[in-house]
């Protein structure tokens, strides 16, 4: 306990050194990517399991923590088996059941069909975080560093329920519960993450996030509402024209005016929606930095100094890279994300990591299953 207190008193950023280094380059990754793409098409999609594995192997092997590269030990076979299990044992029975129920209901009370739809929707919304959690577990359990394996404990079904509950709570509070919910969800993930026999710990509270959250929420609402108000104000002359000198003579002029008005207001509102999303990068950056700073692994402390501006540049760059190349620049986007993470993460007391020992573990034999079907997850 004493060592923990000691490290807490140390400002993490001062003793911390750059911990992650990403050595990957866009071109070699692109070559893997394009071969995967072609083979996946030629094999009617079956190659994608091996393709994913090759991409990950490249990314892991080109990421160094301290002086040692990571290692990915997953196989295509595991991903394939996971996919089969998800499709045949989870999804087909589930949607078969709902579909049968839907027909049954159609007979009983056609007006009340909404119920089976809602259940199906809830099942999908629930299964997505379940799949994400299982994906994370699979990836961690297939990651090694200096021969020491990572693991994730905890229940994906509980995590799915927590996520579903978070959505409900967030909607009920008009979004205000989100920092609280996201902190709880992150705590569940980090506190269940292990390197060897050592468990990560997460001490973040939602309260420090709220000033940022409320400020960003305010700016975002202003960005959204001001242009909408402007559009409404612009509507007055149009209404005055309609009410006032309405005659066949000025009908054409009026039509022209209305055309311009609707075109302009559509553009303004679209712009407002995009604009109102930008400030959230500042909140997300704050959240990432804070969450990282509140994470520990034994004596190791973590820190990240991500600014909203940096995150915005990363995301806008990635967006245009993908859109302008119809997705072919995906490997470049991967490299950008990895470099971004590597350049912002700092670790304190990194040398103490040598004390970590292997955990006796039994890892999942099969892969990501549900996640593969829903196609979630970044890499």
């Amino acid at each position, binding site marked *: 306990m004493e060592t923990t207190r000691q490290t807490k008193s140390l400002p993490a950023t001062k003793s911390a050194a750059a911990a992650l280094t990403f050595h990957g380059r866009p071109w070699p990754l692109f070559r893997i990517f394009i071969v995967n793409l072609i083979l996946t098409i030629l094999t009617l999609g079956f190659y994608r399991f091996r393709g994913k594995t090759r991409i990950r192997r490249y990314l892991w092997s*080109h990421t160094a923590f301290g002086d040692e590269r990571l290692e990915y030990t997953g196989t295509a*076979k595991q991903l394939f088996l996971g996919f089969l299990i998800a499709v045949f044992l989870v999804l*087909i029975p589930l*949607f078969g059941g709902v579909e049968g129920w839907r027909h049954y209901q159609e007979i009983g009370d056609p007006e009340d069909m909404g119920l089976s739809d809602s259940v199906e929707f809830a099942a999908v919304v629930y299964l997505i975080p379940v799949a994400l959690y299982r994906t994370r577990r699979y990836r961690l359990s297939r990651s090694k560093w200096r021969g020491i394996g990572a693991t994730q404990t905890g229940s994906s079904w509980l995590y799915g329920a927590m996520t579903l509950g978070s959505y409900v709570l967030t909607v009920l509070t008009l979004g205000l519960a989100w920092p609280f919910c996201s902190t709880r969800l992150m705590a569940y993930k980090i506190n269940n993450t292990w390197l060897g026999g050592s468990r990560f710990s997460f001490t973040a509270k939602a309260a420090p996030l709220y000033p940022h959250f409320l400020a960003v929420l305010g700016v975002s609402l202003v960005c959204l509402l001001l242009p909408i108000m402007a559009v409404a104000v612009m509507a007055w002359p149009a209404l005055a024209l309609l009410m006032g000198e309405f005659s066949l003579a000025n009908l054409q002029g009026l039509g022209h005016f209305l055309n311009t008005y609707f075109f302009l207001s559509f553009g303004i509102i679209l712009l407002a929606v995009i604009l109102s999303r930008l400030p959230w990068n500042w909140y997300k950056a704050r959240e990432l930095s804070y969450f990282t700073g509140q994470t520990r692994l034994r004596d190791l402390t973590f820190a990240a100094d991500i600014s909203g501006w940096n995150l915005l540049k990363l995301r806008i760059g990635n967006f245009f890279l993908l859109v302008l190349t119809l997705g072919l620049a995906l490997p470049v986007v991967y490299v950008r994300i990895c470099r971004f993470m590597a350049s912002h993460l700092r670790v304190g007391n990194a040398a103490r990591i040598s004390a970590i020992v292997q955990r006796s573990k039994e890892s999942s034999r099969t892969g990501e299953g549900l996640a593969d079907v829903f196609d979630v997850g970044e890499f």
Partner: protein
Amino acid sequence: MPAPSCHYNDGKSAARHAVTLDLTADPLRIVGDDGQIMAVWRKSEIHGIDEPGAGVPARFAGGGDARLTLDDPETLQRLLDAVPSLGRRRRPSAAAVLQAVAGVAAVLALMAGLYLAFPALIERLAAYIPVSWEEAAGKAAADRLVARLSAGGECREPAGTAALERLTGRLAAAAETPFRFRVRVADAAMANAFAAPGGHIVLLRGLVESAETSEEVAGVLAHEMGHVIERHATEAMLRNAGIKVVLGPLLGDPSSLMPDLGKAAAVVLTLSFSRKAEREADDRAVGILTAAGIGGGLARFLDRLAESEGEAIAYTGFLSTHPEARERARTARQTRKGAAAMPPEDWMALKRICQSPADGAES
């Protein structure tokens, strides 16, 4: 860059040990700074973590979690000389490739089997569905179909409805089936007719109006009754549900798993049945018409359709969902010459079924 080094992780702790290699014998020895032997690895069990020349420090495993990393080119070269296979790109073994191919083939075979067995499976399943279920499902589907197709709603002119009921009753009596038939006319200009499960049949106004004799309507009606008796619509609904449930997850498309707001059941009915199903329905129709003693109306109707084949109307009407009129007219001609399907006054009333009672009084 750190100084060139050879180091070893024992797979038990994250501590890093500087080591030298003793390659003189098999198994090779990994020797620590202090001269202690840290591990012995059999050469045949050593494999590289990454492909050679991948731009990654050379890392090796000798079974288990222990790892050997060689940053020093000279030591690496000595190891590659001692174990030449480590310098070659690892090809997937024949067994691994075979396993992958077999796995994919098994899944494809399963899917192909399902695909081939699907029609028989659906037919078997449809036979197990109770008539009461079919009637309820059919009513829902027919309700929706009428609501979707007809601008003016269902046609219910009383005299026409009564005439249609008499014709339906006569055909049903000849059909000898557990289904009770409920025939409705939807106010739509297309000349077409649909059979929903469980005896629910929808005729469109365009069909009644374009028919030259009541025998033609009786023929089409008997044909749709054939679909009902053969449970074609029930099979179609089952097939549609099955395809959706199986293909959605397989194609990995979450949108196909989302609630289907279009309510596919009614849409299914407007799709065409298979040729086999059409032939079965025709055979049934011939049987029903013969038993009821009604003349060859279906053949005449199909003949007229065949003549109009190629005209635009054929593509939106009965032909669009009931193909190969010419060939099928031949089957339908088996009906012997018989009596008229209904008395002339009934036929006049049926023709006017879509006029409201007020319109009828005026004309």
